[in-house]
């Protein structure tokens, strides 16, 4: 006796799970459940870790990554560092269903999305801007992901350049990965 249909979701993101379940309960496909469930998180900005207005990069910009995989065909659609488009999982599904590729990235993924009819709009919010300004202006760009560069990235903001003499060793990360800061 198989326990299907079923939907399972990481973290506490129950609204996404409810949406996925609603799709499945109505006879929808697993792919539709994944796309529509993840879209709920993109709209609701789950814990600030999904969707627009969260996790700004060093320049204060929010970019999005998404993946969808069909276990029936082994087909895949993915986008990385997608700029100015809110619906990352839906763009990933368009990559899967409207191209013979698997993965589009960056500005050119944005151009693809626009071509497919997605709206281009800023992903920055007042909250993400304030988060970035605190990190940049008050915390001196700490923590960050640089190593073996100058000026000392553990003390100073960039721009950085390469350090000629350095020890090749696995770095101990000073970046805290937790409920509100994760992939």
């Amino acid at each position: 006796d198989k326990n299907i249909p079923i939907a399972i979701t990481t973290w506490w993101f129950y609204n996404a799970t409810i949406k996925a379940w609603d799709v499945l309960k109505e006879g929808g496909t697993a792919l539709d459940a994944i796309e529509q469930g993840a879209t709920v998180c993109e709209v609701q900005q789950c814990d600030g870790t999904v969707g627009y207005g969260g996790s700004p990069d060093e320049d204060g910009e929010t970019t999005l990554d998404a993946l969808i995989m069909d276990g029936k065909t082994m087909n895949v659609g993915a986008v990385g560092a997608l700029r100015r488009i809110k619906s990352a999982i839906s763009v990933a599904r368009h990559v899967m269903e409207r191209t013979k590729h698997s993965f589009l990235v960056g500005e050119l993924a944005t151009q693809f999305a626009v071509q497919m009819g997605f709206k281009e709009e800023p992903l920055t919010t007042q909250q993400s801007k304030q988060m970035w300004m605190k990190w940049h202006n008050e915390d001196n760009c700490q923590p960050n992901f640089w190593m073996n560069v100058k000026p000392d990235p553990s003390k100073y903001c960039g721009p950085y350049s390469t350090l000629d003499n350095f020890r090749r060793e696995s770095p101990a990360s000073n970046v805290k990965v937790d409920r509100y800061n994760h992939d």
Partner: protein
Amino acid sequence: TIGMVAIDGNGDVAAGTSTNGARFKIPGRIGDSPIPGSGAYADNSVGGAAATGDGDVMLRFLPSFLAVEEMRRGATPTDAARTAVLRIAAHYEDFMGAVVALKNDGQYGAACHGMDTFPFVVQDNTKESFRVETVQCL
């Protein structure tokens, strides 16, 4: 990141992720989430899995693929997720992350590392509503 795995009434499996990545990343960086086999993986003949955590480390080990392959070899979803997490922990003892695994018969499990506990949400026909389940991390 949200990671999801679903099986529909026809028994078809799908998996996916969506994320805005790590805070204050170097522009252009992506983590594990959009990488097939790392952020998520699905194969109708076995099931699916999804991962979350420190993407710079996790993408080096394809934990979702590993979890699915462990289930293909007969492991329970919980054991498959544990194997994927422990593979990473063997190299990065402080890493933070989790894997959820769903077999194509609807059995599921999860494992985590670097936190006290990890929550995940399940909805199926056995309960009227969704339920948040928690696993103790390894």
